[in-house]
Each structure stands twice: as structure tokens, then as C-alpha cells.
């Protein structure tokens, strides 16, 4: 790595940052784009999603670095059951104790994996945590007051999907799919050597986590708000007219909207007259597990091949599960 002074870096950074705005503006070549309503809609959406996620990302980063600094590796290994099935059940119910939404989940799980939590347990926790918790359950119940079975179905399906994917990962993945730099062994938090002791170490590592996750988060927010600004939602809805099409449409919609798991039920309920309940279920289970924002964050954690394998598993299991459950709803 060549050495260069900060002053040399500055002139390069500023134009790069300013360039982004014209690039963003010129992607779809619409003339009305230069009209300010689009720019303001984009800005309000973008900053809105970012501010919404920020407290959760910070909480996740702080919690993960507290665990990193204060909790010994053996503790995690001792807590997680040895056998696969009890361990997965444990992971699925962990969300009840840590009601963190998906943005905070990924830095936390990353730390736990590095501390020696088995991969299948970590995956089940990432998938189940954002849905199987009391906050999301009560929000879903409120949104579907006239249709409470959907709230129970959401919890049930999320549990089943996390368990099944955890088992598949346990059975099929033998080599660590973590990105090289994230693997265990690199990790040694020599906090004693840092100025200011353990407290400073917590904040320093939280800041590192914030920058690592933050770039994916911001890119995810950027894409989501571009889509929200330029795609007419009713034109999408006509694609979902056919019975199976509605499932695929609602799943795709969950992916591009990147809503928080506490608010997506309200959005789903606004589609209640025009879409079958099964597809709403698919929307509410897939969204928190897999969307633009957290797909980006998962890519930072896992090697691309494993991440794509995981995306495929999530999408197919949710799709099958929602169709099976639709008979009961």
C-alpha cells in the first residue's frame, strides 16, 4: 500500500462525492427528472429509510462490540446447545430476548459467528430474529385486526422457514462461507492496548462495524428510494393478477421495498382487498429475511456463492410455505 497524505486524498474525495448526485439524476433519462418533485421525493425517502435504520444499526453495532470486548469465546460455545436441533430451536427463539430488527441483526450475528457460534445457528437467528419477537407480533396483530390468523401464520411460517434452512445449512455446508477477512483467528481485540481501556475499545469497534455495515446499508437505502421514486406501484400490481403471479409479485415487492419488519404488516394490510392472504404472508415473511438492504449486508458477511445459495433457499422455502399455508388461511 502506497503512503499518501490526507491533503492529497481530499481533492479526490470531494469531486467523487459531488459526482454522485448528477449520476443519480441521470440514470433514467427522463426529462421530468430535473423537476424538483422527483428529487425531493427521492431525498425524503432516502433520508427517511436511513434515519429509521440508524438507531437499530447503532444498537446492533454497540451490542456486538460489547459482546466482542466483554464476553469470552467459551461463553458462547457453552450457551449454544451441541445437538443441531436444540441449537436451532434456541436460535429461533433468541429473537424473543433480543428484539432487534434486521439492520441491527447482521453486525451482531457477525460477531457471534466470529466468537464461535456455529453457522447454522447464526443463520437461523438472522432469519427468525426480525420476525419472531413480541414487537413484530403485536404490530402484525394490529395491522390485521380483522384477520388475526395471518399474524399467527406469519410467526409459524417464519419459525418453520428458519428451522428448515438452518437444517439444510447444517447438512450441506461444511466449509466456512465467511469472507476471508471475517474468519475466526484474525479476531483478537487487544483492547488493553487501546487508549482509554475497554470503553474506548467498545466505541472504536462499534465505529468499525458501523462503517463496514453502513456502506451496504446506504447503498440499499439508495436503491430502494430510487425504485420508490420512479416505479409506479399500480403498474406492478397488474403483473400480479394471476394466482401464482401474486405470490411472486408480493415477494419481489417485499424485496425492493426494504421495509422494517415492524411496519411492513401495515403496508401488507393495504393490499388486503386485492391480493390473496397467502401472498401477503409471503410478503411479510420474506421481507424481513431478504430485501435489498439486508441482501447487501449479507453479501458483506458471506462469500458470494454462499450468499446466493442462501437467497435461493429463503425465496423457495418462503414461496412453498406460503402456498401450503394459504389453504388454511
Amino acid at each position: 500500500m502506497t503512503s499518501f497524505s490526507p491533503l492529497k486524498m481530499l481533492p479526490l474525495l470531494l469531486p467523487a462525492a459531488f459526482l454522485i448526485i448528477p449520476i443519480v439524476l441521470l440514470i433514467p433519462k427522463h426529462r421530468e427528472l430535473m423537476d424538483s418533485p422527483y428529487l425531493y421525493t427521492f431525498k425524503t425517502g432516502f433520508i427517511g429509510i436511513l434515519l429509521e435504520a440508524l438507531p437499530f444499526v447503532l444498537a446492533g453495532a454497540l451490542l456486538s462490540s460489547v459482546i466482542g470486548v466483554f464476553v469470552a469465546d467459551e461463553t458462547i460455545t457453552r450457551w449454544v446447545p451441541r445437538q443441531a436441533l436444540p441449537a436451532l430451536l434456541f436460535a429461533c427463539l433468541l429473537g424473543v430476548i433480543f428484539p432487534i430488527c434486521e439492520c441491527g441483526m447482521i453486525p451482531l450475528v457477525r460477531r457471534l459467528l466470529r466468537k464461535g457460534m456455529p453457522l447454522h445457528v447464526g443463520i437461523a437467528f438472522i432469519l427468525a430474529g426480525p420476525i419472531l419477537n413480541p414487537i413484530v407480533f403485536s404490530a402484525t396483530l394490529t395491522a390485521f385486526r380483522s384477520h388475526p390468523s395471518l399474524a399467527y401464520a406469519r410467526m409459524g411460517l417464519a419459525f418453520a422457514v428458519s428451522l428448515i434452512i438452518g437444517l439444510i445449512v447444517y447438512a450441506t455446508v461444511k466449509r466456512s462461507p465467511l469472507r476471508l477477512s471475517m474468519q475466526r483467528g484474525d479476531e483478537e481485540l487487544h483492547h488493553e492496548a487501546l487508549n482509554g481501556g475497554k470503553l474506548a475499545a467498545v466505541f472504536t469497534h462499534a465505529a468499525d462495524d458501523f462503517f463496514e455495515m453502513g456502506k451496504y446499508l446506504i447503498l440499499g437505502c439508495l436503491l430502494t428510494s430510487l425504485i420508490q421514486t420512479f416505479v409506479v406501484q399500480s403498474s406492478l400490481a397488474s403483473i400480479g393478477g394471476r394466482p401464482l403471479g401474486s405470490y411472486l409479485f408480493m415477494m419481489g415487492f417485499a424485496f425492493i421495498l426494504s421495509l422494517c419488519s415492524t411496519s411492513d404488516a401495515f403496508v401488507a394490510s393495504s393490499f388486503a382487498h386485492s391480493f390473496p392472504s397467502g401472498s401477503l404472508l409471503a410478503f411479510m415473511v420474506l421481507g424481513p429475511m431478504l430485501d435489498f438492504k439486508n441482501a447487501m449486508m449479507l453479501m458483506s458477511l458471506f462469500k458470494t456463492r454462499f450468499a446466493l445459495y442462501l437467497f435461493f433457499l429463503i425465496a423457495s422455502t418462503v414461496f412453498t410455505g406460503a402456498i401450503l399455508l394459504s389453504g388454511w388461511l
Partner: protein
Amino acid sequence: MMYSTVSVKRHYLFRAAVLLAFAVYIEHLAQYDALHYYVTPKLAVWVRLCPVPLSFMALSLAVQALFGRSSAICGCGHQLPRSRSGSAAMYSVFLLPLLLGFALPDRALGSAAAAHKGMSLNYSSLVPKESARFQTSDPFAAEFAALAKKLYSQPVIPVFPQIFSETLGTLDRFKHDFEGKEASVSGFLYRENTGSMGGRFAVSRFLVQCCTADATPIGILVNAKQQKSLPADTWIKVRGKLQVIVYKGKETLQIDAESVTPIEESSTPYVYTSPDAVEEWDQLLRSVK
């Protein structure tokens, strides 16, 4: 991966500045009471706390960069960009929201966003016919029925922003019972580009559950005799008799406007859901009197 101590220190300093800038931006939004353009008041409480950890993080990074012993600093387990263009790309991602935030004034969502998200004018398409007025066998609609009775007793039904979605939902649910009653509502003017609304427009608000990503525009049709040419996004107060018409194949409630008055944009442009609309209504009515 080894990094030279100098370059790690420089990254830390720059990161400290970015974190501090985020803290300042949030503080700035809170100072100017602008957080409500982006998130709900409930969530704003949490966002407002963010500058605290952000500043501590910035401070500890700066301390490590300025006073840290070089042996203590390395890129352990954390990726730092390897090249100059890599760092430039990475940090511009973080500067983008800051630039947008500071450079453009805060503005609430309006007609352009409503057109893309799709305006809701109907709320309950599957309501079973009930025999008696404001009676319902559906336990989940009991709140609507209770609110309906209170609304009906008013000479002019006010649509309070605090219970905007609940009130419109109630009026829509019992639309035939409310036909002929007078109502008054304020919001921004929304007009469909396709011209399918005829001479009509809608008076609308964005309902926000969590943040602007889940904002949904809800409104009520207005048949205006005057002020027809007001531009979209004008804030208006509409008063007139409620009537049921067939719009796009659905029975829809509309206000046959006696008056349409342009007003100042509300200081809280979005509306939120209320945990208990009936209780909220009683309080609002007391405070109006």
C-alpha cells in the same frame, strides 16, 4: 492483511469526522424540528438519541488516531479500503446522505410520490350489510362503530389530523349512513395526471407507520365548483356535504364542496395511526371547546 499505521490513523481521523457530521446532521434536524419529515414521532425519540453514541464513537476513533500507540492499531478483522479510489468510493457513499441532507431543504412528500404509490380512496371494500345503523357484528369494527356514533352527532364532522385515517375509514365504512352529512377536512390537493378524475381532485395526507418508505397516501374525493384550477400540492381546507358516487367502478365517498380555501402547509404534514381513536376524539373535542 497488514496496513501501515499511518494510513490506519488517517482512516480513523476521517471516519471520526464522518461520524461527527452524522451526529451534527441529526442534531440539526432535531433543532429545526424537521425529523417529522422523515420518521414518526415515536421513532424520532430513538433517532434523537443517535448523536450520543455517534459522538462517542467519533471521539474514541480520534483518540486512537492522535494518541494511540502504533502497536495497538492495526486493521484487525476489519477491512479498510486498499486503494485510493477504493477509499474515495467508500467514503462518498457516506458523504452522499450528508450532502443531500444539508444541501436540499427538507420537504414533505407530495403529489409526485402519491401518484407513484397509488392514492387510496376506498378503505373497506368487503363490509357486510348491517341491519341497524352503526351496529356491527365484527368485533374488530367495534372501534369504528363507536367513533361513527360520535362523528354523526356533530353538525359538521371535523376530520382531525390526529385521527385522520381512522375518521376517513369510519366515514367510508358507513358511507351510506353518512350521506348528506357535512364534513370538513384539510390536506394537500392531489390530482391524477390521466384526467380520469374529471373536474374532481382529492384532499389527501400521507399516513406514515414508521418512516417515509412506508408512507401511503390516503384521501377523499372532492367535487369542487370553485377553485378548480388550484395547482397540485396546494394545502387546502374543504367543507361540504358527503355523497356516495361510483368512481372507477367502486362506491366511493366524495365531498360536494361548498368551500375550498387555500391554507398554510401544516407544520406536521403526515398523519399517524392512533392506538385508541375514540379516546383521542374525546380529548380533541374537549380541547377545541
